[in-house]
């Protein structure tokens, strides 16, 4: 009997050791989302944007970072956020101005997308004036250098590690589209909002995106919604017992029973577009066609929100992506398709024949220099998707061929774009 007992004990030990670790990265900072910019007015925001050299903290975040302000509208109010994009481990900072009167202080958190590292950060704006470091009060004299320093912590500690950014040069001004996959980023990357949710759309700019790609499907009753996968599954939604294709369910059923991983509802395409137009500064929306069938409802929404954006004085491009021959057929079946901007992911000949203004090959096909140059010579915009490898992102941006990159790691694209020296 002894071997049996030992074996059973070993089996129990094995089972207990085989439990999968649950990875989480809860945001440790509560944003006040105060309307207005506080002390961080236009002038302050302008002088703080740029490429900075990292001294303290370089081992954690790399030796240079890019600082960029974004904003979020909420009705008549606007909240401002400072993002820091780093070159190491897809790390980014998400900061807001804190209401302190004696100094300009930023509070928020940092996060690395390649793992679950996250922590608090608090920074103070200073200026190096005639060799002496002093608090920045909103004025920068000639020869002064902006220095942003403070402390950061990690999951296990509060603010304890010093960090210092010293201004180096302005951000790369070259126009470039940084498009965030799945409306802002993947749920699996432990972002604070679920992919293809209204909340991640609001977060996209702070993650470095200038535009988003959203995944459009239809419910059983024909409502266009945002959802990436073919089926309801625990990668994307909270456990509720429902399975199978999302197209099997009506919008009312999904709205009642299904919540995305972080508790959000599956949004309709209209809700998503309302958010883009009313709340964000995003200038590009790529409606990826995940469905097979008529495209007329998506076309109507595209045209409705294009008009709405124009009325608001916004230059917002909303295009329908054609990733397959089925999608091409749906597009060809549309009435009045001449005024429906499209992006074609297929070959160059088909892209030209459809009259698409954007060609978007997959990145694994390589730089395709000749094809890209030929398309650009014909006046087309060329994007590449879905590129997540930092080395290739750096290389593709350095080659200066593409007009934009679609990525799950928009902070990485933002870092390499903004730090690129023109």
């Amino acid at each position, binding site marked *: 009997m002894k071997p049996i007992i030992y074996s059973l004990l070993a089996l129990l030990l094995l089972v207990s050791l085989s439990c999968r670790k649950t990875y989480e990265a809860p945001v440790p900072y509560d944003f006040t989302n105060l309307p207005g910019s506080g002390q961080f007015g236009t002038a302050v925001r302008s002088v703080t944007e740029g490429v900075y050299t990292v001294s303290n903290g370089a081992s954690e975040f790399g030796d240079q970072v890019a600082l960029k302000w974004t904003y979020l509208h909420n009705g008549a109010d606007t909240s401002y956020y400072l993002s820091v994009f780093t070159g190491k481990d897809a790390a980014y900072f998400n900061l807001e101005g804190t209401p302190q009167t004696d100094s300009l202080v930023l509070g928020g958190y940092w996060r690395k997308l390649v793992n679950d590292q996250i922590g608090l950060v608090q920074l103070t704006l200073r200026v190096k004036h005639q060799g002496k470091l002093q608090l920045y009060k909103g004025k920068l004299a000639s020869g002064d250098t902006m220095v942003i320093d403070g402390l950061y912590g990690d999951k296990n500690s509060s603010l304890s590690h010093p960090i210092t950014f010293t201004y180096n040069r302005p951000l790369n001004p070259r126009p470039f589209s940084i498009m965030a996959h799945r409306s802002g980023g993947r749920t699996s990357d432990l972002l604070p909002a679920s992919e293809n949710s209204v909340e991640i759309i609001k977060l996209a700019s702070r993650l470095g995106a200038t535009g988003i790609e959203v995944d459009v499907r239809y419910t059983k009753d024909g409502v266009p919604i945002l959802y990436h996968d073919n089926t309801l599954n625990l990668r994307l939604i909270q456990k509720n017992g429902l399975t199978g294709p999302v197209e099997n369910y009506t919008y009312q059923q999904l709205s*009642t029973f299904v919540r995305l991983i972080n508790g959000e509802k599956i949004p309709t395409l209209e809700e998503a577009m309302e958010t883009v137009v009313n709340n964000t500064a995003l200038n590009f929306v790529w409606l990826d066609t995940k469905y097979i069938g008529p495209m007329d409802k998506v076309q109507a929404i595209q045209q409705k929100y294009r008009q709405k954006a124009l009325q608001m004085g916004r230059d917002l491009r909303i295009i329908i992506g054609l990733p397959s021959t089925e999608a091409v057929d749906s597009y060809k079946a549309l009435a009045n398709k001449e005024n429906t901007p499209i992006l074609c992911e297929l070959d160059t000949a088909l892209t030209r024949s459809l009259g698409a203004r954007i060609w978007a090959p997959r990145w694994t096909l390589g730089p395709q220099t000749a094809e890209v140059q030929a398309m650009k010579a014909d006046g087309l915009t060329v994007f590449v998707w879905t590129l997540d490898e930092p080395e290739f992102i750096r290389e593709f941006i350095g080659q200066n061929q593409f007009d934009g990159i679609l990525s799950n790691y928009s902070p990485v694209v933002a870092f390499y774009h903004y730090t690129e020296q023109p």
Partner: protein
Amino acid sequence: MLPLRLQTIRWVVLFLLLSLTAQAQRIPSARRQRRLQAIEADSLIDTRRGPYTLVVTAGGGLSYYSTHLGVPQTIDEPHLSRFGTPSSLRVMWYPDHRLRVGLETGWTTMYSYRGKVAGDNTHVYVSAVPILVVFSMPLGWLTGTDRSVARRMAITAGTGLYVNHSRLDYQGTVMSNTNSLGWMAAASYTYPIGRRFRIAGELKWFDAVAVENAAFTAELQLVWRAFSW
């Protein structure tokens, strides 16, 4: 119950069972000596393998859903049921050594919940059909007698596919299936009631890993030694 690393467990359990079986068949040195002496004394010893038996087991009982689940907060007056009445069918090959192998299927209720949404009744029902390759062995093999508890007890482990079924009744009916890899582990006690029939009680853990469904079942089984050769 946390999700498990299925691949690791599957292979190590298989390895464990095989190694145990090999070990069980290893004859202790004293007995080996006696057997060698017997072989020398009797040149007419029968060296044929067997007998082999095909055993069919059918059973049913009670199940309890044993892992976390989520009832949407949008449902008023929620009523949750974790209990079900599972049934199972297993076909095993009993060779002339300890490790037995076979196939198991059946049907197991995982859980269900009902409630109201804006006055409308709702009901969600989740069940699973396992299709598993299973390995089994008695705790006692060449020890004791037919009446020994160890020889009547067996442990069983298996892995394979779970076809998970969900049914939603709310503003219409939606039935969907999704497949998931998974595993099972069980312990049973078998009592002879005739030359070819036994009854057995079995405690079993079903785990459909990808959909995070797991149920503990207690079954009463009829074991039929259907065919021997």
